[in-house]
């Protein structure tokens, strides 16, 4: 194990890790927004758009991110739509994550008893207020474990970004292996980098899961 080599190349990994985190966070935030939109459309049974949303969810859940990225990055420019690597990565991650988030939110919303909505409405709350004060808080508390699992899943999925010419952690590791043949060192640092990113996320997720006060009213 060549520790000098490792020390020398830490900045490369840090830079790559920052890129991964940056794109990952953007993708995850957008996924949550897309997920909420999709689930609201399905919850309120908006005609037509609802069908589109379910087609989107099936398409995105049943195809790998790598293939989605290849299509976005190499396929779309032939239709005249040129997207940069970064944008492509974020769009791809959002396309994938949106449906996973939507499914988690949906199971949360479904867990809220119908009687809750009915009681809220009979108390004189408007539909929007019933959603805001009664349904959402209960739904969120049920769906948080699944959302945390999705966040970790999406961070893991960012490892394929090197396929669309982004200098992420996998790219740096492969580069160092190719350039210097320092396989063990490059891989060790790769593993450590991902542990540094993912371990706190995973520990925080299980902490959140334990601390959460699950809504169990009206059941």
């Amino acid at each position: 194990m060549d520790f000098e080599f490792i020390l020398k190349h830490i900045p490369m990994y840090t830079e790559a890790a920052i890129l991964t985190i940056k794109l990952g966070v953007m993708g995850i935030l957008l996924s949550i927004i897309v997920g909420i939109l999709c689930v609201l459309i399905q919850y309120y049974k908006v005609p037509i758009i609802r069908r589109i949303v379910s087609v989107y969810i099936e398409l995105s859940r049943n195809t790998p991110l790598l293939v989605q990225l290849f299509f976005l990055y190499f396929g779309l420019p032939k239709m005249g739509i040129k997207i940069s690597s970064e944008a492509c990565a974020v769009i791809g991650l959002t396309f994938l994550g949106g449906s996973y988030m939507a499914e988690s939110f949906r199971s949360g919303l479904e867990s809220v008893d119908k009687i809750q909505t009915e009681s809220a409405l009979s108390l004189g709350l408007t539909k929007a207020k019933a959603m805001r004060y009664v349904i959402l808080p209960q739904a969120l508390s049920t769906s948080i474990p699944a959302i945390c699992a999705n966040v970790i899943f999406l961070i893991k999925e960012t490892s394929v970004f090197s396929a669309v010419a982004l200098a992420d952690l996998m790219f740096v590791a492969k580069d160092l292996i190719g350039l210097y043949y320092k396989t063990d060192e490059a891989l060790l640092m790769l593993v450590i980098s991902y542990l540094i990113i993912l371990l706190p996320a995973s520990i925080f997720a299980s902490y959140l899961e334990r601390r959460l006060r699950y809504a169990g009213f009206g059941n």
Partner: protein
Amino acid sequence: MQDLGIKVLFMGSNFERLLDGLWVTIHISILSVLLSILLGILLGIVMTSKNIVVKAVTRVYLEFVRIMPQLVLLFIVYFGVTKTFGLHLNGETSALIVFTIWGTAEMGDLVRSAIISIPKHQRESGLAIGLNSSQIYRYIIIPQTLIRLIPPAINLTTRMIKTTSLIVLIGVVEVLKVGQQIIEANRYTVPNATLWIYGTIFFLYFFTCWPISLLAKFLEKKWKVN
């Protein structure tokens, strides 16, 4: 130009070649899933043990494998293990090893949670009505475990198929690689082949995984009543 691109699919044996490439992916997934189910059942049973060492070891294995991106695991085996031990593993073998290690961890966790989710009184009631221990397993424990296990195990299969798309990055010639070859070969005659080929691959994956997902969803709903 748009209508020109699709013809690339039907030139020569391009479409069959894509399907052959897809088969490589599916083949590796199926083998890994079968191995994972066998090993995962063993692991799951081992994980219900109360021995602290066994618990710690399986826990570390599970957490590490689940927290690492599968691509990192592929790199470790494909580049790391081959160099450290001087073995020559080709991409397919590395993929099979990695997906079995990963699938075993996932499957083991599913089996463990299915086993511990069966209430104790089920076994006790079985004893009380005079069943012997093999009858309890045969008629009470195993059927209930299977019902809880099969839908998530089917879902694991689709995840395995989707994850297997990564093997193109360690140089296995599968559907994406075949697609790239077709695109390269037709670079001048069909410049927008990229769109059609990658679009086709997208839908090939979709039509492979979708029926399996539907089956899992159907079984989940059907068995929920119990």
